[in-house]
């Protein structure tokens, strides 16, 4: 019995140790709202209009010793757009802009993580938004990772620019508002 058990236990512990050397899986902490998907766009050229998407979820896989092996997937409920103005958000949800009835979800799926050193990285992936799938690049950086109470957390920030025309957004918001700038913050809880 011992002759079979020991090798099995040994194999098991090796696997356990090697698991921690591979990518770790994280779930984005939307329950605790320690993540946000924010946007800003010019208001007729006069000021920055900001807002966010309140409902989304996602997971990512990350290992600081091999950043290129990371991946991330995020799904966004487009109807959760919130620019703090009922009438404006109603218009944004309509088919003039987001058309949330037709496209209730937007999603991002990464294809490549490029390590730029010092915790900085470039994440290239497919964004499916308003019925269009397009490759985009997110400029990201790790804020910090480590133990917190009974959990292991890793936090990141990222920015990207989306050209509205690229995603077939019907109505124009003016010449100064052809792009919307995304400001992304995520905190993952290691699983």
């Amino acid at each position, binding site marked *: 019995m011992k002759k079979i058990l020991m090798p099995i236990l040994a194999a098991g512990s090796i696997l356990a140790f090697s698991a921690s050397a591979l990518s770790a899986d994280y779930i984005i902490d939307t329950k605790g709202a320690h993540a946000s998907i924010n946007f800003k766009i010019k208001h007729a050229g006069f000021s920055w209009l900001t807002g966010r998407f309140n409902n989304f979820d996602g997971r990512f896989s990350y290992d600081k010793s091999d950043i290129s092996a990371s991946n991330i997937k995020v799904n966004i409920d487009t*109807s959760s757009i919130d620019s*703090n*103005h*009922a*009438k404006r*958000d*109603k218009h944004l*949800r309509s088919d003039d802009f987001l058309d949330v009835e037709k496209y209730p979800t937007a999603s991002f799926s990464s294809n490549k993580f490029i390590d730029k050193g010092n915790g900085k990285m470039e994440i290239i992936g497919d964004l499916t938004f308003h019925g269009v799938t397009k490759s985009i690049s997110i400029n990201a950086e790790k804020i910090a990772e480590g133990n917190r109470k009974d959990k292991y957390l890793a936090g990141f920030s990222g920015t990207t620019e989306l050209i509205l025309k690229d995603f077939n957004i019907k*109505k*124009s*918001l*003016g010449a100064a508002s052809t792009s919307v700038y995304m400001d992304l913050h995520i905190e993952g809880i290691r699983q």
Partner: protein
Amino acid sequence: MLRNTKSSYGLIAKSFHWLSAVTILALFISGIWMTDLDYEHFWYDYAAHYHESVGVLFAIFVIFRLLWRQINIKPNFSETLSVVELKAAKLAHNLLYLLCIMIIITGYLIPTADNRGLDVFTWFTVPSLGSFHHQQADFSGKAHYLLSWGLITLSFIHALAACKHHFIDNDNTLKKIL
């Protein structure tokens, strides 16, 4: 005469009726027009502001109108009306009032969904009751839109019926309110 009699509506009821008709038509047309406006259009914001302001004033007016209706006698329906026509007329009239009230409520819930009060011209602001539904502006907006088409359609039928009584039956139905 100002008050209703058994054979005719009074001046007050008559003016309430036609004022409502004009206001409802104006609110309907402005509502359809304003939601089609381009973001750059000068009237994009103003049209909604005037539509909402008139809507609130109309709401107050409807309350008065309903009260006036309660404390007044109702003129008799013309004797030419059949039992079916009598039932239909009462149902239609009650439905017209009910639609008005529901349109007013759903309309109010759109701009106040974000806790902002509703400005009535520059005179006063109706406070928001907050959000009851997470997609309130959209949900209420759809209801407001559909109910409004219902009201306009019913009003059209109401007008056609009055003409039928006036031109075909030659009774006093239309004359009572003119």
